[in-house]
């Protein structure tokens, strides 16, 4: 889903190993740091494989323009944006495009489900996601980081959503596709869960899957999402266990 496939398709799955050496159910390394920005009400930075993504939350604040206000609940807004230098390929264009608008919409809808918005009538809650470096699976990493940023902002939620994609590569189902697997795989299915009850908050899919493969994909995603949920909770806990005076973004170099 990251864009045009380039060059020859590599072997993606061989002898139980994937192109980067992972097994079918293995996630890439994930690190989350909560509270990295000063002005935002809540913030989180995630490194997921080579993805480097920053999420910031503002609100509840006065909803502008006023004709967008609801008398009954907070309006949730989301902007997902990729930096023009985030990709390996050519310089991107700044500003929203069709892809980023769609992703902003589905991410917003995932959070509309869990945010207890009726507590804050006439307000808006803004979720801003900036992809600084992309490596396949940015929307799932974005949801995962934005959930932590919302929690950091103290926005009441029914649950802390997390997301992961599953893919079909050389006929095998696997979790968390990297960029190559995304470009050359046969299917891609990003899912965001509400881990408490297993409800699906974001769901997209492309490619061809049988009924059995779909079930296997869900099982893989569920198993992985439990691990992601732990990493999220650890990141939030750390802010309170080790309070820090200064908030700084520290990017971990490979």
């Amino acid at each position: 889903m990251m864009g045009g496939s380039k060059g020859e398709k590599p072997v993606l799955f061989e002898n139980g190993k994937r192109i980067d050496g992972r097994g079918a159910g293995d996630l890439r390394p994930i690190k989350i740091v909560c509270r990295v920005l000063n002005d935002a009400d809540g913030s989180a930075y995630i490194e997921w494989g080579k993805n480097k993504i920053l999420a910031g939350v503002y609100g509840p604040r006065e909803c502008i323009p006023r004709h967008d206000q609801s008398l009954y609940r907070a309006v949730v807004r989301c902007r997902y944006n990729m930096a023009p230098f985030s990709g390996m390929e050519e310089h991107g264009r700044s500003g929203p495009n069709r892809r980023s608008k769609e992703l902003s919409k589905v991410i917003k809808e995932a959070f509309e489900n869990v945010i207890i918005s009726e507590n804050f009538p006439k307000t808006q809650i803004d979720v801003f996601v900036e992809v600084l470096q992309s490596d396949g699976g940015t929307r799932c990493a974005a949801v995962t980081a934005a959930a932590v940023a919302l929690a950091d902002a103290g926005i009441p939620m029914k649950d802390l959503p997390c997301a992961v994609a599953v893919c079909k590569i050389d006929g095998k189902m696997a979790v968390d596709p990297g960029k190559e697997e995304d470009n050359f795989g046969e299917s891609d299915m990003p899912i965001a869960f509400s881990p408490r009850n297993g409800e699906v908050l974001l769901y997209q899919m492309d490619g061809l899957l049988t009924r059995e493969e779909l079930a296997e994909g869900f099982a893989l995603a569920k198993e992985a999402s439990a691990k992601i949920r732990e990493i999220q909770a650890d990141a939030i806990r750390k802010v309170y266990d080790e309070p820090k005076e200064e908030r700084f973004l520290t990017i971990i170099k490979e």
Partner: protein
Amino acid sequence: MNEIKRDTLSALLLAGKRADGRGMHDYRKITVQKAPLQNAEGSALATIGKSQVIAGVKFDIATPFADRPKEGVFSTSADLLPLASHLFETGPPSEEAIELARVVDRGIRSSGTLDLESFFIEEGKVLALYLDIYILDHDGNLIDCSALAGMSALLSARMPKIEEGKIIRGEYEGKLPIKDKVVTCTFGKLSDKVFLDPTLDEEKGMDCRLTLATTPNHLCAAQKGGWGAVSEREIMSLLDISMEKGKELRSLL
């Protein structure tokens, strides 16, 4: 900003003091993280106080400008990301963002630190260098912070490998040649008091600002902003301070 805060800050500045205890010609704490990103050809994360800016460099193939057929293209843009401040909104670039990008661009361009002729590939085909400045957190003096991030990103940049007039992504041929390190010093002015590195609160209350971009030996760009005025004598003395502070800033790059 509320009136009490504004009055307190003004009173302090007029007495030659600052709310955070700094001297009038001191910077806040500055950090520069070099090359934190890998997909970009160059990158850097700079912070001044609570302001945070990340800059990225990308190369593309472009057509040269008709009046400079032998020169590559250099373009700077700045985004005031809505997550950086409650004051920033989504939408097309604001005047503030455009001014910021152009001031940083002018400093780098007019210093001659980039050799744009080395970006020539063949007739009608040159390299374009895009420097994108992303404001992540806003607590004042975004110009100096952006200039530091931008310069550091250029210093970390690798030249792309070119074959048959195309960029081979992920392969590089040495570093981007940089002649001089360009840095900027931005001063705020309130009444007759001048202070280096204004915070966001100080920016809200001040009459004007003056930015001087320097190489080790020259002034290479300048910008006055705000309704207030500066005198010729002030500009001369601030250039002396900028040349001195420039050494400090360059040592961080």
